[in-house]
């Protein structure tokens, strides 16, 4: 009985960590991975709690949706508003983000993590999976001994060029004139 109880406690603790809570977020990888986990949470209140754990209160998410025929659609929302707006989408789909590549710009207590991600959306009613590639750009700040997300900016892959182009760097030592 005691052994079973111990195993149960260990399993509960493991699940807790796996959900992203209780993490120290002491590394950039911790906070980025926690975001991927938070996005995949289907239940709205749990997703809200997970976002609250990793964003600063005034954190924002900017989405840029490309189009072959129209100008891109650009929208910036607080993370709370985003969760409220996307609730209907989550009732129809399960979301999963798989990171393929990452680069980090870093100085002291700010960092930007640039990631190329495959977003897979499983439609619950049909079982169909939809896939799109994203450049997700994390603006991070470090205080109180941990990293927080101050903003996320993402764009989906257009039909005009591969998403890998997002990580090409250019114009080193550009000076304003």
């Amino acid at each position, binding site marked *: 009985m005691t052994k079973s109880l111990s195993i149960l406690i260990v399993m509960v603790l493991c699940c807790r960590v796996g959900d992203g809570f209780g993490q120290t977020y002491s*590394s950039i990888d911790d906070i980025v991975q926690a975001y991927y986990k938070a996005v995949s949470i289907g239940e709205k209140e749990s997703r809200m709690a997970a976002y609250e754990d990793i964003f600063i209160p005034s954190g924002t998410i900017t989405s*840029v949706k490309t189009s072959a025929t129209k100008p891109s659609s*650009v929208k910036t929302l607080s993370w709370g508003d985003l969760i409220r707006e996307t609730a209907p989408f989550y009732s129809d789909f399960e979301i999963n983000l798989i990171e393929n590549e990452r680069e980090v710009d870093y100085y*002291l*207590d*700010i960092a930007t993590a640039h990631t190329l991600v495959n977003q897979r959306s499983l439609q619950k009613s049909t079982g169909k999976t939809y896939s799109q590639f994203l450049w997700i750009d994390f603006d991070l700040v470090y205080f109180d001994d941990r990293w927080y997300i101050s903003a996320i900016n*993402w764009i989906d892959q257009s039909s005009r060029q591969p998403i890998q182009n*997002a990580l090409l760097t250019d114009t080193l030592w550009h*000076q*304003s004139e």
Partner: protein
Amino acid sequence: MRRNFTLHLLFLAFLVGTAYSVHSQNAPLDSYDAFYLEPIEIKGNVERHFSDGARISTMIYDSTGNSQNITLTAKEYDEQLFMANADFIVTRTPEVLIYRAYEDLASVYSSVKIELVDRESGEAYSTYSVQSMKLVRKFDDWYITHLNIQNESPIDPLPAHLVQDKAAISASAAVEKENNDLATPKEGIPYDSAKVYHVRDVDEPPVYPGDVASYKNMLDQFQVTTIATPGYTPFIITIGEDGLASLSYVHDLSGFQISRAESFVRSMLIWYPGIKDAASVKCKIILYIHD
């Protein structure tokens, strides 16, 4: 009181923004340049550079190195800049370090030199910050959607190669240039035997024995560079008064990188230590190791 003043000053420094006349900006760096280079004069001009919902998040420090995170809306940022302009003549000199763009989203990582001159006393202050700016395109113009600002910490100044007047283009050039730049020592930093100095603040920086080529070969061998480069992670080594090098900051290195950085440091010869007021002092050097 002193701490509050320092915080206030740094806060003003980060708030430095610019106004610009309304005209089309067709490339992200056009908007970037316009944002930084126009003088601050008219309330509301700065706000126009930002997209709806944009935020400005900044890390500021007091003289003891304690940090604070402050986030403002574009309107609040604009108002703070307007007030700063009333008291100070402000100039900013930005320098793009890393630029990325894909379709209608762009990311610019830069260092910015900020100079404030008190309009009454004429007293001048200057500091540096690292700024990570994100821009989005709407209706053929580019707007800032987020600005993350890291002000220079008094206890951990920006590495010399990240700022405009100390730019370097290669490992060997960085070593040579720092030696040249430091011919004129920075005033106002007193000798302290316990302090770990930045190379900018000593009379003579540490020098690696032998020729520049051998130093560069060692950097190459361990995939280390002196310049912030995509795919590389920063770490700090300290050169002691005795010339021995040690790892002092490996904040976000992986276990493999730490192991490689340790081998790198162990393979070093004994340096000629940094000199301050005719005495050997500890000096730190920021380097970058391949991921």
